């Protein structure tokens, strides 16, 4: 059933969004009202942050290559850089969330499958049974 204001907000009789809803957001060079848009200054600051993160990555590599925390730290730093570039430079933070869903889906499925594949190739029967036997004899 339609509600008052449906027509102006571009909703159909059952409340679903129709394509007319998106007429408002189309002036070139601007974005949806109410969303902040990064300025050139912001972009340069972000570039600075990315540089610092890269420096940290290299620094901790030189600090202690044997450290147990090295690999997790590097992965975290890389992920942060990754998300910053995607969110700001690729504008995903400000765009339609469905685009983020599309990319997250691809990234998520890839991570799950390839971590799984890595685990399977790395820890196969011979290794598993050896591990079991050694733990059983303890």
């Amino acid at each position, binding site marked *: 059933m339609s509600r008052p204001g449906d027509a102006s907000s571009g909703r159909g009789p059952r409340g679903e969004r129709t*394509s*007319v*809803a*998106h*007429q408002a*957001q*189309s002036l*070139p*060079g*601007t*974005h949806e009202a109410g969303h902040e848009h990064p*300025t*050139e200054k912001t*972009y*340069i600051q972000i*570039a600075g942050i*990315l*540089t610092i993160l*890269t420096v940290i*990555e*290299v620094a901790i*590599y*030189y600090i202690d*290559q044997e450290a*147990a925390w*090295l*690999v997790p730290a590097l*992965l975290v*730093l*890389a992920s942060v850089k*990754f998300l910053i*570039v*995607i969110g*700001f*430079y*690729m*504008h995903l933070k400000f*765009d*339609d969330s*469905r*685009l983020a869903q*599309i*990319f997250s*889906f*691809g*990234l998520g*499925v*890839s*991570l799950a*499958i*390839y971590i799984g*594949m*890595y*685990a399977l*190739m*790395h*820890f196969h029967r011979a290794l*598993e049974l050896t*591990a*079991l036997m050694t733990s059983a004899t303890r």
Partner: protein
Amino acid sequence: MAQAVLTPEAQTQPHGSGHDTGHDHGHADHPPTSTGINSRKMLMWLFLASDCMFFGALIATYMIYRNHSLTGPFPHELIDIPYTSVSAFVLLMSSLTMVLALAALQKNDLRGSRVWIAATALLGTVFLGGQFFEFTEFHHEGLSLQGNMFGATFFTVTGFHGAHVTVGVVWLLTLLWVSLRGGLKQEDSLDLEIAGLYWHFVDIVWIVIFVMIYLIPYDKSTEQLHEATAQIFNTARMVLGIF
């Protein structure tokens, strides 16, 4: 009596609406899209999502074959972190220039857009030059595709990344040429934006490669990964109630 649920539209849909920023007035009428997202932009994001599967397979292959090299040269003998850090920095900066190019075009600063597009292409080329130099250096030290697993996986992963960068540079130079002929105006921002999405993606793949291949030390990592994998398997066994 049935309501009329099948009603024809009075005319073809109005044009110029339903696109997000930088939509293309220059083209003929486009009816609005059902999601409000520009179709070509959606296409690029879909492609990038699938490219995650592509690079994921290549990087996973690299990870799987760590420590599978029967002979040298080994990574710790070859990898030059300072050198690679500089080239990683170059690529990162190219993302900055890319986004500045787009910002300029969206503000109708055509000259600015050309300068920044050229800068991005230049930085990309510098990166490729750096890669080429690194490859020849490693090759002189005896690393080859056929020699050992490190050579095979290293050259394959970085090679395909480099191929992606090359495509990006060609794309940018083409856009630059179009711009110089007056074909890349404010209303064509979407074209540049889409090229930018591709370019940034290539950069973030390098962010991952830089850590996975260069920074994570070879031997230690394998031990750690082995431990982590063993943990996963032990947990799974407990959960499934096996043994």
